């Protein structure tokens, strides 16, 4: 392995070298910036955990890019190997920084402030002043003055003091707390879950995976751990602005629910609102949206009722014009399908066609297209309830060959051509979308991030400073030298501090200008030499 000219590093040396590289500040900095860069695609490309529907749409629009993006993990950036690699390296780098620094800090905490340098005048802040007080008095005053905020050590003719150890403590606390937050976040991601369900007003919901429209469990979450909570949506109310420039904006919406924590528990009532979730042990229920479900009655070719009830339509915009699909599986002799829009406050212009002018159901109407044939649900492939597979179906047409559009007002019934059935728009009801979730470890994460903030403030705002006072006998008077050093690259006010200290040690009153008959007033004015 080794060549005669340049001896190669032994594996141990190589490891040590690699460790030093990884834990160096420069590497940590680069990793930090890399992490920022790596997060960018997560905001640009739709993410499958967050917006699965957007991912599907994106994939349809960009068939060529999809395989490449999938290989790169761009649809789940925050779980991708490369993103994980960066933050794991950063964590290791953090630990590699914290551990040795804690050891250094521990030693620094227990060691006394360093002895005074021989030439105090060389320090960034320096004041020399002469006084008639004895050296012992001056040193005693210095000790008294510095005690409290500083750790003070006297040695012969000098007093050495140091303060601001909390700066490094804050620094260490900040970095340790960051690790705690990252671990708590990872724990929550692994053991938590998040699901969404649409519940019709008047209907109930039980906390089982089958009841969810979408369910995203953490990779280590066990569905058996779902708390057996159930609830019924008793009522839902929404109020919209009926005037002014923001007409149509919702003012408030909320749902009254009755819930049981366990099947045996007593029923309780709760008013669910945005920003007012139902928080129970291991589960939180949030109101995140609402919409309309038109009530329809569909009769088939035999004249029997093939479907009667509500159909959930999804709002497409803030006017709550909603799209939905009606699949009539029971219809004979052929299955029937409808898709189209529900308009809560129907209006029509030649330019725009039908649209909704207001989100409340003031003048509801439906506009549907109808199909007959095979709905394709027997193939076994799972189908979305919001999509109609018309590949095996034929559209109803008017005599002129154009698609037959069924425009329905409440109570109106339309017969389908060829005696294949009829559809009646009976009315409408509302549904609410609830999000049910649990993120374990959130308390730890919150504590961690608060501690991190505390540590951060300590590491930014605590000043680590040293001060020395030395006395020298000269011609029967005492030369007092005071010097200061800032160890945190924030030397504002250091001069003032040293000057104040000097003033305090040569006189009993804080102001050197009113001294007691000694030459100190002059000293304060003339002899005092401040150097930066």
């Amino acid at each position, binding site marked *: 392995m080794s060549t005669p000219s340049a001896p190669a590093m032994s594996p141990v040396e190589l490891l040590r070298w690699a460790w030093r590289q990884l834990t160096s500040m420069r590497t940590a900095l680069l990793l930090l910036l890399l992490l920022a860069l790596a997060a960018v695609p997560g905001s640009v490309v739709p993410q499958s*955990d967050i917006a699965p529907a957007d991912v599907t749409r994106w994939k349809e629009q960009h068939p060529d890019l999809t395989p490449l993006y999938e290989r790169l993990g761009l649809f789940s950036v925050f779980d991708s190997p490369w993103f994980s690699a960066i933050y794991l390296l950063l964590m290791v780098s953090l630990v590699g920084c914290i551990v040795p620094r804690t050891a250094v800090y521990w030693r620094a905490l227990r060691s006394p402030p360093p002895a005074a340098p021989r030439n105090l005048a060389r320090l960034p802040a320096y004041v020399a002043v002469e006084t008639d007080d004895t050296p012992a008095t001056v040193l005693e005053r210095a000790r008294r003055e510095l005690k409290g905020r500083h750790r003070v050590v006297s040695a012969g003719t000098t007093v050495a003091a140091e303060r601001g150890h909390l700066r490094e403590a804050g620094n260490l606390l900040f970095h340790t707390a960051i690790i705690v937050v990252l671990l708590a976040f990872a724990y929550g991601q692994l053991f938590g879950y998040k699901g969404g369900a649409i519940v019709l007003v008047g209907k109930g919901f039980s906390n089982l995976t089958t009841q969810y429209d979408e369910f995203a469990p953490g990779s280590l979450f066990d569905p058996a751990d779902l708390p057996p909570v159930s609830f019924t949506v008793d009522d839902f109310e929404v109020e919209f602005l009926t005037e002014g420039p923001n007409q149509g904006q919702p003012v408030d919406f909320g749902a009254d629910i009755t819930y049981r924590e366990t099947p045996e528990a007593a029923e309780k009532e709760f008013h669910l609102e945005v920003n007012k979730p139902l928080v129970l042990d291991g589960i939180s229920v949030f109101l995140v949206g609402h919409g309309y479900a038109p009530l329809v009655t569909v009769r088939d070719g035999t004249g029997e009722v093939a479907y009667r009830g509500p159909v959930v339509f999804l709002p497409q915009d803030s006017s709550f014009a909603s799209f939905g699909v009606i699949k009539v599986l029971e219809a004979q002799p052929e299955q029937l399908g409808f898709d189209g829009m529900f308009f809560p406050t129907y209006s029509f212009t030649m330019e725009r066609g039908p649209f909704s002018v207001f989100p409340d159901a003031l003048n509801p109407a439906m506009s549907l297209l109808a199909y007959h044939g095979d709905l394709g649900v027997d193939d076994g492939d799972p189908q979305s309830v919001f999509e109609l597979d018309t590949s095996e179906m034929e559209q109803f047409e008017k005599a002129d060959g154009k698609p037959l559009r069924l425009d329905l007002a409440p109570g109106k019934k339309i017969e389908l051509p060829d005696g294949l059935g009829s559809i009646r728009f009976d009315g409408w009801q509302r549904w609410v979308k609830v999000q049910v979730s649990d993120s374990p470890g959130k308390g730890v*994460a919150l504590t961690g991030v608060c501690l991190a903030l505390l540590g951060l403030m300590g590491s930014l705002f605590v000043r680590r400073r040293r001060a020395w006072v030395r006395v020298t006998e000269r011609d029967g008077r005492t030369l007092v030298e005071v010097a200061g050093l800032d160890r945190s690259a924030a030397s504002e006010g250091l001069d003032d501090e040293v000057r104040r200290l000097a003033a305090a040690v040569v006189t009993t009153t804080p102001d050197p200008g009113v001294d007691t008959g000694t030459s100190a007033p002059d000293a304060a004015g003339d002899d005092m030499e401040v150097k930066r």
Partner: protein
Amino acid sequence: MTTQEFAAFSDNAVMFAGIVFVLAVLAHLAEWAGSIARPAEVPAGTSTDAGGSVAVATGGDDEREERRRLRIETSGRIGVALTVVATLLLGAGVVTRAFASEPARVPWGNMYEFTLTGALGCAVIYLALLKHYRLRWMGLFLTGFLVVVLMLANLSLEQQAGPLVPALHSYWLVVHVGAAILATGAFAVGTLASVVFLLKERVQGTAGSRLRGLLDLFPASDDLDRLAYRLHAVGFPLWTFAALIAGPIWAEYAWGSYWNWDPKEVWAFITWVIYAAYLHARATAGWKGRAAAILAIIGFASLLFNFVGINFFFGAGSMHSYAGG
């Protein structure tokens, strides 16, 4: 006063604030123009050095120099005075905006209002620190920046006053957005210091440039660097609180999950990471000064993108989209 009257008053106050800021820009421009010395006419520094021996010859120069200084000083003072007036007007506009909807609410319910309040935050921080840190050199940059911001707010973000959407019915709106606006103000002023730091470095490199007279207006590079650091050191904990504490707590209450990788969250995180890198860079010898200043500017760019860009480019894709215009 009715809500409509409050709304109209607010719009007017903001408009006048914009106009007065433009006047402040002109005053600071005059200050700058006076500072750009003609190298042939005023050989900087020599007139005072040689003062003793050629007293008669330099007498006229001294007088001219004195007049020039007075002109610069006066323009600068006028600029600051106009900035104070404009800030008061803007403050009145922001406060009355709060009363322009029924019931009254914090004036940061949509992008237009965030922008107004953020601009007010920048102006207030500048004025508050003006005396202690002698920030007048920043005047032209700051007023220019605010004019652009107010213009953009009026052109592309303006929205009629109205009540909050239900998603914002929470006192966390006050805490979360308030802290974010304060942090933005501190970062904005800090970034200006970093920009000037880089400009100064650039101009110093070009010997004999007429721009060199300008350098007298600016503080020493070290002071600029330290000022930038101070402001970022204040902004960073505020941003940490806004984006990583108050935001997630509210998200947990409103959306059921404290971190959702929403585009706005992702970019708030990116911004946080860049500023964390800035603070580390300041602590690392090789990255001080220039590299740190560049990082600060990148950080602010990312902050601005998060503030405006997310709502424009991602729109409905972001859960923060109710903030849009």
